[in-house]
């Protein structure tokens, strides 16, 4: 079987979870014996991708600021131009190559997927990692993107949603029949997390605070409104009022960065809040390891892979009820993203009870492995076969 997969980023040139999910999904599908042509909008080297063929739709090099970042670029006209070039390239591919199925990830590649289906008559899977409703964290968002998503979801032969939360949004906001949508939870690739030893050398100051009995509350994310970080900052201030041995590690970058720095100062907790900027490699992994508690504060999070990564690094988890990954984990704290008092309460509860912290750590650790990319690949394959027989029978 030959698969045309339409993506927007892959590690190490990713600015977020989309690239990571695409990478591991493609790898598991390839290991199941599928030939994959993977299309990207930019031109760069991607180590450890020899099991598929990567097509660069343009000669553009990845954004310097995040060494990726294209997926979340705020510059809409530039993005549209890039998408147009991407579509042209995909058209060329389906004209010259034989495929069995087209698998498009998110609105960024949906138009290209629709166009490829038009030209080839092949079945189209649209994979929804996030909708514009999630990204804008509101009912507004960019109407043009809503329109692109609507058309893509309508035209698709099958839709993969990364959680029940996302499926519900697709049904309620876009009036898509629920039967067309399959929930495919993401997973964590543990093999890519081997070869790591935590030596406590990266965050020396935080380590010294831990020795003094501090609890480190961490988050690793893009600093955008979708992630609910202003609410997390408010909860940090509320918690610090009542319990002072807390420190908060904010890893990442994004358009809310200055606002968050300002907010911490306004709340008078600047000295308790640590901004690292964008982290990768050891700094990224040590950020999980140094954290006792990982908070996913998203206003709207279709899945939330970082929670599983955090669990792998032995943290307790507090996850907003608006985050998909929370729907299949039991040993975690949940709260509504707006309920900052409850979040503050949970943080203090964990910080003041070693027994609670260790029990939450253990349950997260025992649960996160039930997500596997091989299961995801098997689900994809079943659907590809159904679609193919449906189309060609």
């Amino acid at each position, binding site marked *: 079987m030959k698969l045309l997969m339409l993506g927007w980023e892959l590690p190490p040139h990713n600015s977020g979870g989309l690239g990571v999910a695409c990478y591991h999904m493609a790898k598991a599908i390839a290991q199941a014996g599928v030939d994959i042509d993977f299309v990207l909008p930019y031109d760069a080297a991607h180590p450890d991708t020899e099991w598929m063929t990567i097509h660069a739709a343009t000669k553009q090099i990845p954004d310097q600021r995040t060494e990726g970042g294209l997926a979340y670029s705020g510059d809409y006209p530039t993005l549209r131009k890039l998408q147009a070039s991407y579509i042209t390239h995909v058209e060329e591919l389906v004209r010259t190559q034989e495929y069995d199925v087209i698998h498009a990830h998110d609105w960024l590649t949906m138009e290209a997927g629709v166009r490829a289906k038009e030209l080839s008559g092949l079945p189209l899977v649209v994979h929804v990692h996030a909708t514009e409703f999630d990204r804008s964290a509101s009912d507004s968002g960019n109407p043009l993107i809503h329109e692109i998503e609507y058309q893509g979801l309508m035209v698709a032969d099958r839709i993969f949603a990364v959680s029940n939360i996302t499926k519900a949004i697709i049904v309620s906001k876009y009036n898509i029949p629920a039967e067309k949508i399959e929930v495919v939870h993401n997973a964590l690739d543990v093999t890519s997390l081997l070869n790591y030893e935590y030596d406590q050398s990266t965050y020396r100051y935080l380590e*010294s605070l831990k020795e003094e009995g501090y609890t480190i509350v961490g988050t690793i994310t893009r600093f955008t409104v979708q992630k609910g970080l202003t609410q997390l900052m408010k909860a940090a201030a509320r918690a610090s009022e009542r319990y002072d041995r807390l420190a908060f590690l904010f890893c990442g970058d994004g358009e809310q960065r200055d606002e968050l720095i300002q907010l911490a100062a306004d709340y008078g907790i600047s000295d308790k809040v640590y901004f690292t900027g964008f982290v990768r490699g050891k700094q990224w992994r040590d950020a999980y390891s140094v954290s006792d508690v990982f908070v996913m504060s998203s206003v709207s999070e279709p899945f939330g892979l970082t929670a599983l990564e955090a669990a792998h690094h032995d943290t307790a988890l507090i996850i907003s009820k608006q985050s998909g990954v929370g729907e299949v984990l039991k040993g975690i704290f949940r709260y509504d993203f707006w309920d900052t008092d409850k979040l503050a309460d949970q943080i203090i509860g964990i910080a003041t009870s070693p027994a609670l912290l260790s029990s939450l750590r253990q349950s997260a650790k025992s649960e996160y492995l039930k997500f596997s990319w091989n299961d995801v690949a098997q689900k994809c394959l079943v659907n590809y076969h159904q679609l193919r027989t449906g189309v060609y029978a």
Partner: protein
Amino acid sequence: MSRGITLYLHVHQPWRVRDYTVFETASHHDYFDGNGENDRNNGRILRKVADKSYRPMNALLKKLLDTHPDFKVSLSITGTFIEQAEMWAPDVLDDFRALVETGRVEIVAETYYHSLAFFYSHEEFNRQVNMHRDKIREVFGVETTAFRNTELAYNDQLAEWADQAGFQAILAEGWDPVLDWRSPNYVYRPAGTENIKLLMKNYRLSDDVAFRFGNREWAEYPLDAHKYQQWMEAAFGGDAPIVNLFMDYETFGEHQWEDTGIFNFMEHFVANWLKTPGNTFYTVTEAANADEPRGEISTPHTITWADTERDLTAWLGNSLQHETMRHLYALEEDIMQTGDIELIGDWRRLQTSDHVYYMCTKWFNDGDVHAYFSPYESPYDAFLYVMNAIRDLRYRLMQHTRYGGM
């Protein structure tokens, strides 16, 4: 009666904090050792400004002193500048010494670290003033008799302190709301003081040189010595005894580049001014004693020489700045108790007002000035680096006490 211009130039360089991240906090303590081709490299900046400003301006001042027996000038030179000049441009310090040795250059007292300590800790403020006095004595062999506070930040309380400390003169901005109908071109008595005299900056004539001189958009551009002399005559009017020109030393060659003609302008202006009999220059202490106080000036609220508001908001106007100062001065007692000279020195270097100035978020009107003077990409970057440095001070403190926390 003589008519005297009080030319006072302020010499300062801060110890800028390098891009000091979370990852270095508690493992490297070298916040001030920036290197590379950027504006956080203190040595690079000092060498650059030495070439553009300190060397040519000192040469000009020496020439003016040698040529005109009536030419005088006052300088305030911060401890942080002297430290850096000792490291990277010792010849500049020799030049300053040569100026002082003419006997017609007065050194003005201030805080060693160019800090706003007066508003946070009088004890620390006193220590820094004493440190500065000792350093000036050591480097120049002179005693100070006039005081200026960082950024010309001034209020009645400061005047009372300076009076009790025995200073003969103190400097302030000649700001209209404070002067009301009065002119800055007389000597005044600060409210609540016995002996000290208040000298107020003529900001129009000062800023014509310091800020507007090279501005091609300015209606009066280009400013020449003749035109400036006419304005000066008008300022003295019938009987005013003094005109106080206070500005950054770096006006000459750094803020106004040589190609604006600033050095030529100055040379010609001084020569022209002294041609008229009765015209002279005063040092600040001479100016204070040139006339009896013409009245009392009360300044309950702090004024400074910055921005259109002439207040402290460029340094203490937003929560980033307040947080920085709060956490910094909260360490005072513990830091002092360690007796660790390096730790105390680093803590003091962080008190230099420039650090919080770089965090200013007043973007409009004044903001462009702030952006020009900031070595950082944004006020938020400046804030994060300084906060990390403050946390590192805490860590070093913990190493001393093996006790504590945040």
